[in-house]
């Protein structure tokens, strides 16, 4: 029995799909769960019918739609709806892959830093490119807050620019670390149950009730975290996009 809390994050190549330079590009377990997430989202959004009176599946699809649409409108204004497909894709991709990841023996896509970093950089460059494209140099006025005395302005600008550049780091690490830590904690507590049972026999199995209860509680917490981190990721995307849409504020 291997109770290795890190093992669940291993990338296992399933088959090779090609080469870029001397790197073999493999279809991995991570790819498989991305595919599953995309399939689940597509199924939810496409197989749900467009009835006047929605059924269960259609209600879920419409609630997701309204949830993300409301989030964009309240955080980035009506102009933010330009980015509705992007934010909806990000939110649903992270939420669904995180929720799938809670099922035992599955893989959590967002527990890979490279994935969350890529998504965060996608948002970062979308904000940067769209902000400059739409507002020109006025976009950089987000680094110059109003009402700051002249002698302190260079320092404030330095901090603002630094925080802007660090956005993709915090954006990606928050999601990655939450998913990673949650799954490690789950695995450790679940592992305790088996370890106690194997090493101490009957007493151990009875004692294992405690970590088992903790595992159940942690699973509930992880369900919340899975959703919450997707929400946080999406809402931060909205807030960052708001800078690109309305740099004056």
């Amino acid at each position: 029995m291997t109770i290795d809390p890190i093992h669940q994050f291993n990338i296992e190549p399933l088959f090779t799909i090609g080469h870029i330079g001397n790197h073999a590009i493999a279809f991995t377990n991570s790819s498989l769960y991305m595919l599953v997430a995309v399939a689940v989202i597509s199924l939810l959004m496409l197989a749900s019918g467009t009835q006047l009176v929605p059924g269960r599946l259609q209600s879920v699809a419409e609630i997701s739609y309204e949830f993300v649409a409301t989030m964009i409108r309240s955080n980035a204004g009506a102009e933010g709806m330009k980015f509705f497909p992007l934010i909806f894709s990000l939110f649903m991709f992270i939420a669904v892959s995180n929720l799938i990841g809670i099922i035992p023996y599955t893989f959590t896509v967002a527990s890979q830093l490279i994935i969350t970093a890529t998504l965060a950089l996608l948002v970062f460059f979308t904000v940067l490119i769209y902000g400059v494209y739409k507002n020109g140099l006025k976009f950089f006025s987000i680094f110059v807050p109003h009402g700051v005395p002249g002698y302190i302005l260079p320092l404030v600008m330095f901090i603002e620019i630094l925080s802007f550049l660090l956005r993709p780091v915090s954006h990606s690490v928050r999601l990655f670390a939450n998913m990673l830590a949650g799954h490690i904690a789950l695995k450790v507590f679940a592992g305790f149950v088996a370890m106690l049972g194997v090493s101490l026999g009957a007493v151990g199995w009875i004692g294992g009730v405690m970590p088992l209860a903790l595992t159940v509680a942690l699973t509930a917490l992880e369900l919340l975290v899975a959703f919450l981190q997707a929400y946080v990721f999406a809402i931060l995307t909205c807030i960052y996009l708001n800078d690109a849409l309305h740099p004056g504020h």
Partner: protein
Amino acid sequence: MAESHGGAKGPEANAHTEAEGGHHGGGFPPFDSSTFPSQLVSLAIFFVALYLIVSRIALPRVGGAIEARQNKIDGDLAEAQKLKDQSDAALKAYEGELASARSRAQAISNETREKSNAQAEADRKTLEEQLAKKLAEAEKTIASTRATAMGNVRGIAADAAGTIVQRLTGVVPDAASVNAAVDASLKG
């Protein structure tokens, strides 16, 4: 974490962990850069696919359903408002019609009452006239009857007076003096 765990489980598990670590290029899997190209390619493929599905099909579809429902609700509300307006108008028309019908009925009944009053008045007048005429006739008849009766009474009185005088005196009195005496006593 892997190290401490491996220590607890003895060399066998440690070897296993090391073997796995070796297989994946060493270290903590999320920081294993040899897996990055594969992951990036997968993410690019699936995220772009998701974006295309979401932006081209899913969102227009679900958004269309929501919009269609909103339009249907708005349309139905407008329809309901229209029908309500219609029913209000019909109610107003009905109430107007009812009021005018009521006033017309009032007018008709007043007119009828006046007409029947006038008729009754006229009937009463002709009846009274007829009655007055009959009364006059009756009074005339009574008067003539009375005159006749009074005439008869005079005759009878004269006869009776003549007869009484004859019985008392044995003399047949003169008719003229009897009559004069009767007249005198009748007048007295």
